[in-house]
């Protein structure tokens, strides 16, 4: 491959995007007043949030999405590099699956009491073992919820 050409860049590794969406009710959780848009500065960053003009509270959180970043491509073909890539990919898949199911579960139960971690996505699993466990626990809750619905 020629040096200094665009051929050296593949995929979107040099151009990363991170985004989350937080869904809330439009009325303050504490005092029930309609929340309003407010601009504020976070260091140099201009930001916007929805808060209660009366108490500064927020609407009840329904669900927050989670941005899972794909693993970096392997930099060499040694067993160690390839193994790391395979494990990172597996973790990415499991984590994506957990958050997909979590967001759907929290959205479907917007009017019910469910564990806060299913609404916020935090703490998010940090390794393969935690991701499998979190997914299994959520699957059990969803099964109970489906049974209860019937």
């Amino acid at each position, binding site marked *: 491959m020629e040096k200094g050409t665009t051929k050296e860049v593949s995929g979107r590794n040099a151009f*990363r995007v991170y985004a989350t969406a937080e*869904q809330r009710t439009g009325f303050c959780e504490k005092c029930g007043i309609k*929340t309003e848009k407010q601009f504020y500065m976070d*260091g140099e960053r201009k930001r916007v949030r*929805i808060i209660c003009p009366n108490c500064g509270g927020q*609407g009840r959180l329904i669900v927050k*999405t989670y*941005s*899972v970043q794909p693993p970096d491509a392997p930099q060499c073909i040694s067993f160690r590099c390839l193994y790391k890539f395979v494990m990172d990919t597996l973790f990415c898949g499991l984590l994506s699956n957990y958050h997909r199911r979590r967001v759907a579960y929290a959205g479907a139960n917007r009017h019910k009491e469910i564990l806060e971690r299913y609404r916020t996505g935090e703490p998010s699993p940090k390794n393969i073992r935690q991701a499998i466990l979190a997914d299994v626990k959520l699957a059990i809750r969803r099964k109970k919820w489906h049974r209860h619905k019937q």
Partner: protein
Amino acid sequence: MAQTQTVTDTGIKELIALWEEAGATGMESIVGLNMATPCTAAVASTFADPADTATHHVGSGLELAAIDAVSHATVNTADDTITFDHVFTATGSINVAGIHVCNNDDDVTFIECCFNAVLAMENTDTLTIDGQSTIDQA
């Protein structure tokens, strides 16, 4: 489907045109995506043809609007990141599968994001978008 997000090919083309001062415009607008099932963000998506069978919302609070706040931040090198914050407020029951972040001419999509799952919004619900894109030299 996992949440997917990407800078689109047309977005990169617009960015290069902006560097060239060739009549391009910067990040200015945002719109919600309408689809019954979760979509998958793709680099080939365009403003006119979003991911999968998604379409742009044209009402209920998720329609094309000026982004509330576009700013910059530092991740690796000084000011290497553009940040965008926006709050949608639903004016009726509506499903949202993702977002498009567009230019000021409203004809190019810079960034496409498809959420983990389709979000069912009810009247007065708010959806706060917190996004950033980093040009990474690392």
